[in-house]
């Protein structure tokens, strides 16, 4: 019996000690560097290994994470990570595919930050930048950028996101700070089921757009025609998300915030006009019920037009009907889209800030962005090389990639709320809009109270 106890104790102790051994390879302890030198004999034809072996003491371990939407994206990011890892002897990279948005990517990340186990570099959506920065969770990398030879400069990236990424909350101006670098950008377009539209005898939205006649009236006309094809066919669809009703407010001349983003503008006449048009479409039964996922019925060929971003493209390439995209229709103030963006940021607790910033520059390099854009998910955020956009236009289908570029040129950047609490703002606005669209709240009631409620979420 005593022997069994000893063996059990030795097993437990042995396994516990064995746990120390696995991450030895990435350990920074000087004693392990010697082992690398001894064991990794470079071969003549392996240039990368030669570089790594030349000065292995400089290589630091870096973990980085982004939020992919599907396995193809995971594969591309892994490939990008492997390529950078092979070319760069300053760091050893470990790519971690974060969960999707609905798998609580940010929630997991916040928990890891609180527990001190978050990666050195991670991606977060543009709307979260202010929250993370104000709580001191991410580094202001301006000094690192100024000392870096690889950094291409603020002007090399899409100006809308960069204005928000360089905001300094203390001086309340853009420029002094740098909270990260935009991974890519995207924008909304209407994905069209050309077969349904043709069957309904409706005008082709792409031709209407070409002729300058793609506006709210013609949009409704097409939706009505398609919706008339049957009870199980819907004219249009869009998901329940702040950005979707937002474009109707934007295009009506309204919006979420005043110019310096310190007050709500949702209750303005212009914003309410956009909501009025949108709720009319829903209350006339022309759309996939607001609050339900419009992607499955669109892919099932039962929706004429679906409002979504460039990120839906990889999934739609398997559609078994003729499809394409068109820019959003113009409202009274034009076709004012969103620029969606997210940024790679540096964990404030990283032990290797210089290398982490260098990883940011490498991950946002033009070639890397082109590799990711080829997948069809998003648009490169680099604007310093016109070839990048020209190359993007060739990544078909959809044929009309120009719709996304047109959308970008007339758009509001989705943005962090530096002077307020975006999650609180969103938490109040979303159910209020649901009430209007469902007809449970009148536009007058909405307009009378919404700004007071939303303004309570500003500092």
């Amino acid at each position: 019996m005593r022997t069994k106890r000893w063996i059990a104790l030795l097993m437990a102790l042995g396994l516990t000690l064995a746990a120390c051994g696995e991450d030895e390879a990435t350990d920074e302890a000087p004693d392990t560097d010697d082992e690398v030198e001894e064991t990794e004999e470079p071969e003549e034809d392996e240039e990368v290994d030669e570089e790594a072996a030349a000065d292995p003491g400089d290589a630091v371990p870096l973990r980085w994470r982004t939020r992919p939407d599907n396995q193809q994206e995971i594969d591309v990011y892994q490939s990008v990570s492997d390529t950078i890892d092979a070319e760069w002897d300053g760091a050893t990279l470990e790519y971690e595919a974060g969960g999707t948005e609905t798998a609580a990517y940010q929630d997991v990340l916040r928990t890891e930050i609180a527990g001190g186990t978050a990666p050195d570099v991670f991606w977060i959506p543009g709307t979260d930048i202010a929250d993370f920065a104000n709580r001191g969770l991410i580094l202001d990398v301006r000094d690192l950028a100024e000392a870096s030879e690889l950094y291409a400069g603020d002007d090399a990236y899409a100006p809308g996101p960069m204005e928000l990424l360089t905001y300094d909350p203390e001086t309340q101006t853009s420029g002094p700070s740098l909270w990260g670098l935009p991974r890519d950008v995207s924008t909304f377009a209407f994905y069209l089921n050309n077969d349904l539209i043709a069957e309904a005898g409706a005008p082709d939205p792409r031709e209407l757009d070409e002729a300058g006649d793609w506006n709210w009236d013609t949009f409704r006309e097409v939706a009505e025609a398609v919706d008339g094809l049957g009870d199980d066919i819907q004219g249009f669809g869009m998901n329940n998300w702040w950005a979707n009703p937002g474009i109707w407010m934007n295009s009506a001349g309204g919006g979420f915030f005043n110019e310096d983003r310190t007050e709500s503008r949702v209750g303005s006449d212009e914003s309410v006009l956009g909501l009025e048009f949108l709720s009319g479409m829903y209350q006339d039964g022309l759309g996939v019920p607001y609050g339900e996922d419009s992607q499955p019925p669109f892919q099932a060929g039962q929706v004429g037009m679906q409002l979504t971003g460039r990120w839906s493209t990889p999934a739609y390439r398997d559609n078994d009907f003729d499809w394409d995209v068109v820019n959003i229709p113009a409202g009274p103030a034009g076709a004012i889209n969103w620029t969606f963006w997210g940024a790679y940021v540096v964990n404030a607790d990283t032990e290797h800030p210089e290398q982490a910033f260098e990883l940011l520059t490498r991950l946002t390099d033009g070639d890397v962005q082109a590799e990711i854009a080829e997948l069809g998910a998003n648009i490169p955020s680099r604007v310093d090389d016109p070839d990048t956009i020209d190359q993007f236009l060739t990544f078909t289908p959809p044929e009309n990639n120009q719709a996304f570029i047109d959308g970008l040129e007339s758009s509001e950047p989705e943005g962090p709320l530096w002077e307020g609490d975006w999650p609180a703002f969103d938490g109040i606005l979303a159910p209020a809009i649901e009430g209007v669209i469902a007809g449970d709240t009148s536009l007058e009631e909405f307009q009378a109270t919404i700004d007071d409620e939303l303004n309570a979420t500003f500092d």
Partner: protein
Amino acid sequence: MTTLSLPRMRPPRLLSASAWLQALLGWRVLHTLAVGAGLWWSLTSAALEGPGRIAAVAAASVVLLLDLGAVAGLAMRRSFGRSLSLAADYLTFVGAILVLFQRNDVFRGLDALGATFVRGVPFGVVAILAWVVTGWGEQRGTLTQVRRIARYVAYAAVAGLLLAVGLLPGLATFLARTATPEGLLLLVVAVVSGYLAWRTFQSDVAEQLEVSNQTTRTLDGLLFASPNLLGFAAFFAGPLIFSLFVSLTEWDAFGDAEFIGLANYTQILALNVGIASAGQSASEVLAPGYFEWFSVGNVVVGAQDVLFWRSIRNIVVFTLFALPLSTIPALFLATLLNSKAPGIKVFRAIYFVPSIAGVVAVALIWRQLFDSTIGWLNYLISLTVSGLNNLPGVAITDPRIQWLSDADIALFSLVIVFSWMFIGYNAVLFLAGLQGVDNTLYEAAMLDGANRWQRFRNITLPALRPTTFFVVASTGILTLQLFGENVVLFPTTTPIGAGPQNSTLTPVVYLYEQGFRRFAFGYASAVAWVLFVLIFFFTLVQFRRQREQAEG
């Protein structure tokens, strides 16, 4: 038979028992001063913040109290001094080991061990098989040589397993990481504390203090249960008390918490009632800081946190529907399954399946079924309506129910999913209860002329009271904690899981939103404690009813 047996190793007993007790008192005084200094450092050091500081202060406080009690007890030569001294040294020993492991990244490495463990699996299989052969031979009392060989094979396989999963590099790394002043200090503290606890635990020291047999047995029991007790304290009781503390603070999980007393609870629970005259809006009749929750006639009820009260309203409505729908049909289903019909066991298994399926998988399937445009439910309803409309004089409009997007219906979609998941489980519980009912009672009732309903009403239901109590109480608690189904069925609403116009917002969804999305961990903890009180009273009422029925 000669067997391999490891030697019985014991540390030397330093000093006689009386000299040891004197030395122990001196050590305790030093230990008290050191722990007191540690407590002071934990309270003032900038190196610690948030939960790290709170955990350090709590641990140091506990050990300091033990030390002070031990010093007093040992000075008076009372037996409790030995008990408290043992506890303090034992906790110091465990704490030093855990901190050393944490410092050496052992716990983080356990993840990696999961990846390397597969290399040791073949050795593990061989060890188990060899051990089985040993035991099998012992039972038969034969083949001594084979048993001996099998035993050596088992030892060799265990050694092989440890080597295969990386014991040697692990040991080398551990020693390298320990070979720092801090690491060595922790190791010394662990060894010294461990020895002190062991020596003080010896019987000669106990006899010196005339420790009673009862105390000795209690200490033996506590030592035996200590791994579990420490785990309970670290992973259940500790976080529970911590969350109570956090609920009295404003804390975002990153820095130090700011103590604000009961302010979170005040904000959560504050209600205000106003009477609106003609033309007055709700905001005009409610006190500042209050928003309209609901109105009855001209009476306006306001709350500081309307969303919390909305979540309470939702969960009460949900429970009122989901509880009967997942228990009453289960009872009738159990009576059907309590027959001896051929293949009845298959049906019992089928009805049980939903309760063992993961909530995410179940909710995902229901989300597709509920889709109002391409979902199966509406498709079947359309087919039915279409069929009925073919009948003469019938003209029914296809309702095209918006299961997930209509604020008046969404909560009932959740009721359907929840009830579907738990009917089978509750039916199995009722079935177990039914099978415990004495059949002679039914036979006697039948002789007295009782019909089927009378037998069910007067025999089955009373006999099932304990089962019914358990089913209602456990299902009720589950309904009040509703979370996973919401989040999967309504992933795109804001807050996530709150459904259209917050119609499926429940307290747990709300506290998740506050804690993990809004960084308001103090407020989220307060919501959790309010929910705890709600569940506690719900269960208390069930207990009282059960006791009254049993006594009546």
